[in-house]
């Protein structure tokens, strides 16, 4: 029986510069932030990042890890616009591959089903077809002959998601309000990692929540990272809410290079254990 437990740094050591990396969660909710922090500590560059974007996207942009962004939105939820993402776009620092949210779901699903594309009406008449050159048109082969949009598979080299609970084999459980599309990210990726608030014995998963909360199967997982408070500063309900004060400080770090340097030295140029210890002493 496989024990898939590993550390953030061991997982990130599996990555290479230039890879396409998926990050689960949604906006500033249940993001695998301890893994994002490990990527920030690494030498990786030129990543293509696929995300329902939140501070993961902003941090990776600010640290100049990103070559290309694949997204439908980037937002901090309570702070609607992500300042580091905006700065990257407005300075032309990143390539841009925009989707509608529904198209994004279809692209993940196509990749998870090993299809080249999925068809949809979404995108017709909009400027997505102007701004995203990977999106094409396709004609229905049936009598209707309808001209539809073909959303390309958003296939990734690696993906990371964060779950409330998991066992050491990679069965993952969400206990919050929404599964987001985390299972699809893992289905769409070559190397698949799950971080979790707590690793529990398999037989204890059923005590934590109903069977339908068991979103992730071990069939989709190569590595399990135990990361208590690992989604900080995003929300990880019901274990903890978003750290709004911290998020405000993070957003303010986009105001100047000096502010970013200070945020970086205080919160990012340190190990995950040091990060968590500093948080505890700051609160």
């Amino acid at each position: 029986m496989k024990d898939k437990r590993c550390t953030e740094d061991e997982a990130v050591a599996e990555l290479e510069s230039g890879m396409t990396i998926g990050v689960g969660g949604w906006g500033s909710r249940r993001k695998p932030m301890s893994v994002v922090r490990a990527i920030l500590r690494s030498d990786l560059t030129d990543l293509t990042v696929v995300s329902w974007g939140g501070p993961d996207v902003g941090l990776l942009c600010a640290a100049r890890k990103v070559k290309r962004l694949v997204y439908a939105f980037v937002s901090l939820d309570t702070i609607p616009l992500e300042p580091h993402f905006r700065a990257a776009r407005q300075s032309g620092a990143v390539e841009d591959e925009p989707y509608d949210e529904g198209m994004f779901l279809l692209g993940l699903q196509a990749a998870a089903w090993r299809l080249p594309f999925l068809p949809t009406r979404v995108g017709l008449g909009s400027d997505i077809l102007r701004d995203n050159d990977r999106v094409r048109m396709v004609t229905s082969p049936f009598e209707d002959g309808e001209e539809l949009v073909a959303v390309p598979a958003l296939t990734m080299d690696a993906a990371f998601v964060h779950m409330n609970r998991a066992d050491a084999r990679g069965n993952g459980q969400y206990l919050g309000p929404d599964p987001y599309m985390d299972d699809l990210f893992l289905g769409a990726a070559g190397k698949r990692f799950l971080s979790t608030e707590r690793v529990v014995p398999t037989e204890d998963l059923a005590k934590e929540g109903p069977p339908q909360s068991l979103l992730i199967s071990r069939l989709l997982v190569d590595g399990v990272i135990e990361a208590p408070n690992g989604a900080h500063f995003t929300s990880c309900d019901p274990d903890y809410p978003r750290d709004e004060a911290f998020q405000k400080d993070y957003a303010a770090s986009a105001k100047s290079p000096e502010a970013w340097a200070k945020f970086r030295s205080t919160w990012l140029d340190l190990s995950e254990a040091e990060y968590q210890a500093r948080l505890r002493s700051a609160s």
Partner: protein
Amino acid sequence: MSDQLHGLVDRADVCVVAMAECFRGDGELLANPIGTIPMIGGRLARATFEPDLAVTDGEARLIANDEAFDWPDGKVVEHFNPYRQMFGWVWNGRRHVVMGGTQIDSYGNQNFAAIGDYARPKVQLLGYRGAPGNTINDTTSYWVPNHSPNVLCERVDTVCGVGYDRAAQLSEAQRRFHEIRFVVTNLAVLDFATPDHRMRLRSVHPGVTVEEVQAATGFDLPVPDEVPTSRLPTPDEIELIDTVIDPTGQRLREVPNP
């Protein structure tokens, strides 16, 4: 200002009623108003003349409560509605969404992705979000809390939400679910009841003149011969809003009285 009703009725309540009226006739449909006054308006429509509407809690549930924001006695959950299910409703044609927009033009094209040249924008905003899919699959209305020429502009820089001129370039099959119904603002209600589906003035809120609306609009706005005043809330509606739907008055912070 000469309107005798001005000062007696909160402008926010007129906006709430106008928002509720967007859903009249929708029947059993997911009313998905995004924003403070839209959420209150959707609740009001369901609590009064459209009792079969379904509404969300703003997260992953459809709930039966009349309260718009806080549920001191708990949520009455009707359905599990995570984000992926929302796309199911949108593509199934079961939703009427109300979105905002940083720019909305005379044909109802909408932009909240980026201002300026998209390739290297002057101001990056949210991204396309769900606007292309919402507008091509279901009825869409818009809420504009700050009616101004920058928002209601001649041409949007990026088309996220699809307007009538863009839809007209599509085949009949491609555009068959497209409808932009109303644009409700802090000054007026606008619709697209013109031969080429350009936006026109439908009604002005009490205390607002046609000239004020025109001056606050960045394109030439067709005006009917007789411009009605937006419907006033009834005493029952005001009581419902005040005591149940929005007792803390969030609507008054979004649209203060002039």
